[in-house]
């Protein structure tokens, strides 16, 4: 295959991820610069184990950010991703530990609960015309409370479900290539991202996701049942939060009912750093992944450098601004 050929028919992988072929992924450069910077500053940074720790730190936030990406592309916003994740983790805990059901049922229950809650948010937004910010803020609070109610304000442990912690912590890849012990959580993140990119780029649902964010009224005037599709997008995002719930529960081997607040801002930040516009209509899953990685690398790198915690926060804030600014400058040049 010649070079020309490969560029005119990009690989399936590239096509899958780059749903808006015109959008250049400029955030990538910031990520590389961060990686290089930290490697020079600390010899400990570029260890395999640390790289894996970064990937693992990305996994939960990355999955949440993918969910947020979908909603944001429709022109909405989802503040409930964090507490929904927790709620789904608690549901898994109840089904697996309290009811003693088998593992697959617990996983399905969590994902189903996520989809259902997403459907509720979607209904509030699409049918009741409640602004997404308020609808999902309300859901965030409702779910935060319900997680505590259902779990009786106590963590639920998965000690009776052998293998549960392997969902996130085990390493299928490591079993095959012992030199590359990438945890399953990271694998799942990539599978979720690929699936989301596929849906966005290749399916009717994805098309309407972009169309809704671009000009909802025009879509409606074209005779499309915009409410149905919007609710579908929110449900899908909810289901993905369910997956994040399983991931975090597995990683902590427990469902922590109070966790999740504040995760929404981090997820949305990853989405925006990745180049998705908060006004909707444009965005890529790959960008979101890079955004989530930038956040994780930044946090980890500053810790490995032993920067004082209060300065870590300052530097994180400054670098987030700079990374997005660098993007703007590059975009202008391009």
């Amino acid at each position: 295959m010649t070079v020309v050929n490969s560029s005119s028919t990009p690989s399936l992988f590239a096509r899958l991820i780059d749903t808006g072929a015109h959008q250049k992924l400029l955030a990538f450069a910031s990520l590389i610069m961060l990686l290089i910077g930290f490697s020079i500053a600390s010899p400990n940074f570029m260890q395999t184990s640390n790289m894996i720790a970064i990937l693992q730190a990305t996994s939960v936030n990355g999955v949440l950010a993918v969910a947020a990406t979908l909603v944001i592309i429709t022109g909405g916003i989802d503040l409930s991703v964090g507490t929904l994740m927790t709620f789904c983790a608690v549901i898994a805990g109840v089904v697996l530990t309290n009811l003693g059901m088998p593992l697959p049922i617990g996983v399905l229950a969590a994902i189903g609960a996520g989809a259902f809650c997403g459907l509720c948010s979607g209904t509030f937004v699409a049918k009741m015309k409640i602004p997404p910010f308020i609808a999902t803020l309300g859901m965030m609070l409702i779910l935060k409370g319900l997680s505590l109610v259902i779990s009786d304000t106590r963590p639920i442990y998965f000690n009776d479900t052998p293998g549960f912690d392997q969902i996130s912590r085990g390493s299928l890849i490591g079993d095959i290539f012992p030199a590359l012990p990438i945890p399953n959580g990271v694998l799942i993140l990539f599978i979720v991202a690929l699936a989301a990119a596929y849906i966005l780029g290749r399916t009717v649902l994805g098309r309407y996701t972009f169309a809704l964010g671009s000009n909802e009224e025009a879509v409606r005037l074209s005779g499309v049942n915009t409410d149905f599709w919007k609710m579908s997008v929110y449900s899908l995002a909810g289901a993905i939060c369910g997956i994040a719930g399983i991931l975090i529960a597995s990683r902590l081997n427990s469902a922590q009912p109070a966790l999740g607040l504040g995760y929404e801002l981090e997820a949305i930040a990853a989405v925006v750093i990745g180049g998705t516009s908060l006004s909707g209509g444009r965005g890529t899953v790959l960008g979101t992944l890079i955004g989530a990685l930038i956040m994780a690398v930044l946090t980890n790198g500053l810790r490995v450098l032993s920067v004082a915690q209060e300065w870590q926060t300052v530097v994180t804030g400054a670098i987030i601004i700079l990374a997005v600014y660098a993007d703007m400058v590059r975009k202008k040049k391009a």
Partner: protein
Amino acid sequence: MTNLVLMKGIEKRFPGVHALKNVSFELNSGEVHALMGENGAGKSTLMKVLSGIYPKDGGELFVNGQEVELDGPRASQDLGIGIIHQELSLMNDLTVAQNIFIGREPRLRFGRLDEAALNARAVEIFRSMNLGLDPKTIVGELTIAKQQMVEIAKALSYESRVLIMDEPTAALNDAEIAELFTIIRRLKADGVGIIYISHKMDELKQIADRVTVMRDGAYIGTVEAADTPVSKIISMMVGREVTNDPVVIPDLSGAETMLEVTGLSRGREIQDVSFSVKKGEILGFAGLMGAGRTEVARAIFGADPRDSGEIRVHGKSCSISKPADAVKAGIGYLSEDRKHFGLATGMDVRTNVALASLDRFSSRFGVLRETDMRKTAQDYIGKLEIRTPSDRQEVRLLSGGNQQKVVIAKWLYRDCDILIFDEPTRGIDVGAKSEIYKLLKNLASEGRAIIVISSELPEVMRLSHRIAVMCEGRLTGILPGGEETTQEDIMHLATLRAPSMQPEGYPQ
């Protein structure tokens, strides 16, 4: 033979506006039925009722002889009614093909899209329209004219029995209009009924079979297009006679040069454009779609950056890097795209009129004098006959033409020495058009320098003292105004693709 569409006694009210009063309308298959009326007469509203966007408050609606109730756009689509909206309603982030087939994407199994089929079908439609457009272009990157073509393509793709076209040609040039008319004739031959709304009177004779006129939300009458003089239709619309004075070219030999542009360039869009305008002069800019006239105006105004070029106002070189600099230097620019670049549509008429001159209405501490603003706004509402219940009405609720008048009022009040009007009469009715022409002439005779960019050749010819013609980013020539210049002369320069340029006259 039953009517394709029959509307009887249609009523529609908005808060503060009785938009449709007992309106009737009928459409036969295979006919082009023009719907005429001043800005705000209710044409778009009637069509929105027919296409299921607004529920009607009263009256009856028959399609193919069957009485129907439309509960949404889908219901109307299912009855074979397609519409091209007056205001573009496209998804800017999607591609051309994706826009055309939104809601009807060719699918594979499991909800997967067949993108190849989608693009192929778009290309097919473009071919039938004689339009060379890449189906994968993002719509937001197109000019308004091209976007309008996309809207037309979309409407055609429905293969409707009834096709409503609400000012489809407002943004098109003559060549494209001719193309559109070919399409319309073909559809007509296939038995499609077409409702055609336009403010361009000359189009009536070319395309319409019958003409229905509305005024102030009421039905006035229906006449045969072929044997009714245009002046009769105009007086039905306006309720009075409209006159158009021929252009009188003043002697400007001694007049001061107000604006001088030399060597203006930016990439491929603008290539070494130089011209000047004198005090009291109206310089027309003609050219085909995408010739670069808008780009030139925006570059002068500082709305876009420029690579090189000098702008001199009153002989003094000005460094203009943002619109605020241009306004300070005395240059005003009325954009061709009022919705995106001209109006704060969510705000009231009063604020929009004052938007470029708020400093004149405020005290030293920045407190606004609301009464003065009201007076000024009401003054212009009267002068330009803007149809609005009050100066506090939100601009987005006005009809398209009236919105345009608000933008004009904004620049008139700002009182710049040099005014650039980009498509100033787009979507404006005949009556108001002649008022605007009078206004532009008055502004010039008061000693201002005026630049008018227009895609309507008759308009350029009726107004301009000199006519600059552009093609593909280059200024291909500047012709004298008045009788001696013909449409053919202009079209020749407008299609002169070779890189030769001879100001003030004909190329070899």
